[in-house]
């Protein structure tokens, strides 16, 4: 067995992983104990990476060869690499010749490595001469970029992970860090355990697991962050908590801000934000961190999409940074604004300028000197001044016919972009769509004319930068499957072909030499390194060998041997005059306010065990155990008002589209809010007209950052009458299930509602698929028989019940050991719940025999009911945890002790720890429950005692 150190491809924490592999196959993964991001820890997603790269999944789920279709709607057919690369070059060259360079768009990804990014960026801006290169980072971090640049002068998170342990107050806003950045959250938990005086403030409309463990949770109304920040500033000024000297020495624009917040009193903010005034005051005081001796305790703020994915995303960022600047909480250990990056290399992408509004090395497109520098470094006559189209605009331009060729790499825009109706119109209209992708079937694939197979995690070679500016190496453990190639190589090979087809833009002194003479990732990186010289992110002090030895934080200019942990320690910023800038935006609500027609605020968020569009995490049944199926969360009273109960199907409608899915009561939400996880694309949440969750979301963007307001839409929810139902579940061989799921897509699209999710606990040689369907007319016999054929319910010893006139069709299959291994219920599906339990728990179904077919609403034999999974690593359910807590002795009232006992008994939360926040809440709940009982007993005793024992009665 060999081990290769690399970096996790999921979120921006950038954990080091050690990949175990043998004979060309990845066999295991563990956290790299030496990596400074995680020190050996991994979350549920990271710790199961090896399971997503098994030989079987590489074979079944990945793209293996270039493929093209003769026309849209025709099947993809394999073609050779040379043919594919020539065709891309020919089509791009023709488009550019006929319609100009801006008729081409590149839509890339924060999951690409820095080297991939660099080649693509140079290809677009240097070779073609268009700035139409943008990435899914636009959906993720661009408001943070705008915020940093606007306030501090550069796109650079000033703080670092070590500050988690040093902060006195941690202010988390717009982030469910416990789920989205679990390994960092573990560090925060450690810090809190070590320093009980630490205060954790969480701002989030929902009572997430992050919020649940906070010392103070401000459940603000969605989109009222700027008002909250301003009100906190108002309080700081009113109570003299600001640092006037620091402000005077290091900032500009404070007076305008003071003016802005003058009337934004806590009382007013409390009304608008929907939180108690005292909580805002408390938050402001803790944030300011003023100690009694006049010193200051450090405050670290952590934030993510709740601030960024907003039509006022930049304002939310700058007004948060205002609070740091006002109190001097920046550039010191434990203090500063630290944006949490959603993607593994959004940072690296920004470093190379891989966005439509940026240039390499954190240069600005609008700055002629910067353009000239880049042109000189690349040896081209110029880089274009005209800003490119940011993600949403790029697709709008394609929908309008302005962009005619799209090259999409490493991302799934037909899942992740807002306003899918527009996005799909764009993909349909676009004359040439190239999709460079690792996975076989994403929602975008059907729109591609040409598909190029790319390498992925475990195979790729290069570097990424995490949220704390730390560059880590990504290393290959195995070869890419089939003919898949590295992204940078594909871009290079097309670029070299384009150089021969397009008029040269090279300077006379560079003429004749290829701009893309890259041989290795290192050679690409060296060029990128040179682009950073003298810039805020200067890494000229690093070399490839140094990166191979250990990850390093930029900047690290020549002469410096180690990276830089914190920025702005001297109070000098990268603005022209070295002063940070206060912003004083007026508070604005979300672009779409709720009204009579659309009375509910629809927010979106992440699930604990999923990542992005689920191309990778969705290949593991075990990662779906925590949240097995898509559902819309809603407050109980909102449910009651609509006469709904949990599990009912509802139609969610926004001004852009509608979606049918089940509703679920949630204690996390306030009234008049609904919440939907952002992961469910049309591959999972299908049905006629469904493009997944982003059918509903809106394309309105922050004017400064271009980031769309994915987090907020005005919505209405109503009961939906879809009387014809079917539920099917089957265990499939691990070699079959992916293709079966693909085949099911076509069937799903023919019904009003359909969802299809895998389940199971890999590795076990099999994966389950669960399909639910609802329609407004009877499911046709043809449809049902196709479904049965796909689930192997069409032949052999299949139990069958059919009453077609009554709309009842049932089929079940038992394996040789008498366990239910597949079933279909069409019509009356009330038995689906216990039948799914029976199937998933491998219960003895042989004993039930034909009575299974009766599909009675209640189980004919007692089964332990399915209980939500809490601990994904060790597969521990909520029920077992509650039972264990309930059985703990009365005297054990110390939460830490109870948690330790729970962990001792069930081992839950002892591996990756992603479930720890929930476990703590459950421990707390179990104590509260005991207290309630005790109080009840005590009060009963009080009321009865005077009558029974008082002699005076």
């Amino acid at each position, binding site marked *: 067995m060999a081990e290769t150190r690399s970096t996790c491809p999921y979120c921006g924490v950038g954990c080091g992983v050690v990949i175990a592999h043998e004979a060309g196959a990845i066999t295991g993964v563990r956290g790299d104990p030496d990596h400074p991001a995680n020190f050996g820890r991994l979350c549920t997603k990271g710790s199961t990476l090896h399971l997503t790269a098994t030989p079987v999944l590489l074979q079944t789920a990945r793209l293996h060869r270039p493929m093209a279709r003769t026309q849209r709607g025709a099947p993809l057919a394999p073609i050779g690499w040379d043919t594919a690369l020539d065709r891309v070059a020919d089509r791009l060259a023709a488009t550019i010749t006929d319609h100009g360079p801006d008729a081409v768009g590149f839509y890339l990804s924060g999951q690409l490595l820095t080297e991939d990014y660099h080649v693509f960026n140079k290809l677009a801006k240097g070779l073609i001469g268009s700035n139409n290169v943008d990435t899914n980072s636009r959906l993720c971090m661009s408001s943070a970029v705008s915020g940093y640049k606007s306030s501090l002068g550069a796109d650079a998170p000033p703080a670092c992970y070590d500050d988690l342990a040093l902060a006195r107050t941690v202010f988390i806003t717009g982030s469910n860090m416990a789920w989205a950045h679990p390994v960092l959250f573990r560090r925060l938990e450690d810090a809190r355990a070590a320093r009980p005086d630490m205060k954790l403030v969480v701002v989030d409309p929902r009572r997430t697991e992050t919020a649940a463990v906070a010392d103070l949770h401000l459940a603000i109304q969605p989109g009222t962050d700027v008002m909250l920040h301003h009100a906190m500033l108002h309080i700081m000024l009113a109570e003299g908590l600001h640092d006037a000297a620091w402000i005077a020495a290091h900032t500009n624009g404070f007076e305008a801000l003071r003016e802005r917040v003058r009337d934004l009193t806590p009382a007013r903010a409390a009304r608008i934000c929907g939180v108690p005034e005292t909580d805002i005051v408390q938050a402001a005081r803790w944030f300011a961190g003023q100690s009694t001796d006049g010193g200051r305790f450090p405050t670290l703020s952590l934030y993510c999409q709740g601030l960024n994915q907003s039509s006022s995303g930049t304002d939310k960022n700058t007004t948060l940074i205002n609070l740091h600047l006002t109190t001097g909480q920046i550039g010191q250990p434990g203090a500063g604004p630290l944006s949490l990056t959603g993607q593994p290399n959004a940072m690296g992408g920004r470093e190379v300028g891989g966005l439509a509004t940026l240039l390499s090395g954190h240069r600005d497109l609008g700055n002629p000197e910067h353009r000239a520098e880049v042109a000189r470094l690349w040896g081209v006559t110029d880089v274009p001044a005209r800003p490119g189209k940011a993600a949403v605009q790029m697709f709008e331009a394609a929908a309008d016919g302005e962009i005619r060729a799209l090259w999409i790499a490493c991302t799934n825009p037909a899942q992740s972009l807002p306003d899918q109706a527009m996005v799909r119109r764009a993909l349909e209209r676009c004359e040439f769509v190239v999709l460079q992708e690792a996975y076989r079937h994403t929602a975008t694939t059907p729109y591609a004319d040409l598909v190029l197979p790319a390498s992925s995690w475990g195979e790729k070679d290069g570097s990424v930068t995490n949220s704390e500016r730390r560059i880590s190496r990504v290393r290959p453990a195995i070869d890419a499957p089939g003919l898949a190639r590295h992204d940078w190589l594909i871009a290079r090979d097309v670029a070299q072909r384009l150089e021969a087809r397009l008029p040269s833009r090279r300077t006379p002194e560079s003429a004749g030499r290829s701009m893309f003479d890259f041989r290795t990732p290192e050679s690409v990186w060296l060029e990128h390194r040179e682009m950073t010289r003298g810039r805020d992110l200067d890494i000229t002090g690093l070399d490839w060998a140094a990166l191979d030895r250990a990850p390093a934080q930029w900047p690290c200019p020549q002469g410096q041997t180690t990276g830089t942990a914190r920025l702005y320690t001297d109070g000098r910023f990268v603005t022209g005059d070295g002063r940070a800038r206060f912003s004083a935006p007026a508070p604005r609500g979300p672009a779409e306010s709720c009204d009579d027609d659309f009375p509910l605020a629809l927010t979106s968020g992440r699930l604990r065990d999923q990542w992005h569009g689920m191309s990778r995490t969705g290949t593991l049944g075990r990662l779906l155990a925590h949240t097995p199926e898509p559902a819309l969360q809603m407050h109980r009273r909102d449910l009651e008002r609509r006469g709904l109960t949990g599990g009912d199907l509802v139609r969610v409608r926004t001004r852009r589209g509608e979606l049918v899915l089940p509703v679920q009561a949630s204690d996390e939400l306030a009234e008049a809010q609904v919440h939907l996880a952002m992961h469910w694309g049309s591959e999972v949440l299908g049905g006629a007209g469904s493009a997944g969750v982003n059918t509903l979301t809106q394309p309105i963007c922050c004017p400064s950052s271009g980031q769309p307001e994915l987090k907020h839409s005005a919505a209405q929810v109503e009961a939906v009458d879809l009387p014809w139902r079917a539920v099917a579940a089957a265990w499939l061989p691990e070699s079959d299930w992916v293709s079966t799921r693909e085949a099911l897509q076509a069937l799903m699209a023919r019904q009003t509602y359909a969802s299809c999710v895998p389940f199971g606990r890999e590795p076990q040689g099999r994966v389950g698929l669960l399909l639910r369907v609802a329609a407004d007319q009877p499911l046709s016999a043809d449809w049902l028989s196709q479904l049965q054929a796909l689930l192997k319910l069409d032949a052999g010893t299949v139990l*069958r019940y059919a009453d077609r006139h009554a709309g009842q069709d049932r089929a079940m299959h038992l394996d040789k050991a008498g366990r239910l291994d597949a079933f279909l219920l069409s019509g009356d599906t009330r038995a689906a719940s216990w039948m799914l339990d029976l199937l998933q728990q491998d219960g003895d179904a042989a004993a039930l025999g034909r009575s299974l077919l009766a599909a009675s609403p209640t189980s004919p034999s007692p089964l332990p009911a399915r209980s939500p999974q809490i601990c994904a690593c060790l597969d521990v359910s909520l029920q077992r945890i509650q039972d264990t807590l309930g059985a703990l002795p009365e005297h054990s009232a110390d939460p830490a002790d109870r948690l330790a006992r729970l962990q001792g008994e069930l081992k839950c939360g002892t591996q990756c720890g992603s479930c720890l926040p929930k476990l703590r809440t459950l421990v707390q709940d179990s104590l509260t429950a005991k207290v309630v009982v005790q109080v009840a007993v005590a009060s009963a005793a009080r009321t009865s005692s005077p009558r029974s024992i008082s002699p005076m009665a």
Partner: protein
Amino acid sequence: MTRDDLPAPRPRLVLVGNGMAGMRTLEELLKIAPERYDITVFGAEPHPNYNRIMLSPVLAGEQTIEQIVLHPLDWYARHGITLHLDRKVERIDRVRRVVVADDGSEAPYERLLIATGSTPFMPPIPGRALDGVLAWRNIADTQAMIEAARTRHHAVVIGGGVLGLEAANGLSQRGMSVSVVHLAAWPMDRQLDAAAGALLQAELERRGLRFELGAQTEALLGDEQGRVRAVRFQDGREIPADLVVMAAGIRPNTALAEAAGLRCERGIVVHDTLQSVTDPRIYAVGECAAHRGIAYGLVAPVFEQGRVCATHLAESGIGRYVGSQVSTQLKVSGIALYSAGNFTGGDDHEEIVLKDPAAGVYRKLVLHRDKLVGACLYGDTSEGAWYLQLIREGRDVRGIRHALMFGAAALAS
């Protein structure tokens, strides 16, 4: 002793046919009016009344002749019944009200009950008179088949209905290599639908039977000794056969009645009282009777007829026979099948189907206007009686439709 003390001369009842239908009628009659008639019974076979249905297990070697006798000789004696065995009635003289047997003996009657049953239909195939070709109706046929099984190897049964399959199974049990020749696409096509027929065929094939389905027999071929040696089909194929059993259906025995001038249309036409429409003194029950156009060949309706007929013979009768919902079973041990009513459905009929191939179970229920009208069960026939009851009652089953397939017990739970 005065004249009044003398017993009045009792009316005479003559039963022609010592089989299950007639004898069941007598039994019912003796229960309600034991002293009413002087009874005489003519039987063409030399045996007392036996359970013809059980010839199948006898052939299969699972029971003996003795075990299937229903009414031993002393039973007749005990009830004062005059029994003429091995004596065929040749003529009915309705004017003199006597029957004349093949030995010339006569028996006068005030009431006559005809229960002559049926005879196997011998299709007009060349070679049917060859040695080794027989039909299966009675004990003698059974004994002949048992004897043949000892010395011969290749049996061909022509007809894949109930009787044919039971014959085939019995012969197979006795060691013969048996082929069943059947015109339809599946065995028992009049009692089972295609799915159940296929299950039955598979099961019987598993037990060693072979099937020639959709096959039309052109001729039976004999050897020099006039013994059958092969069966030839219309497509020219031949299969070896040294025993051929014809099981191609039955014909009601109506020759005696017809000769007596009774109206016969595929059976002696009877009223709901089982009286012949021609002569009210003459009754007919069983396979020889045609009630509302149907000659029943199954035991349940025949027993029902007997019960009604007995009440009329006892002159206490107000009962009327209004026809039966018939159900079928196959007496091949280990094979359970059941069908009743209209199990093939039709326009505006609805079907509910259950299949459990691992357990070898198939059920189909046919509904018409929310009523159960037919059932076809294979493998597990435990609910057959319930379904038959529902069919008979013509009950509206809307409210229990979802539970219908799972039986009365499921409904209760």
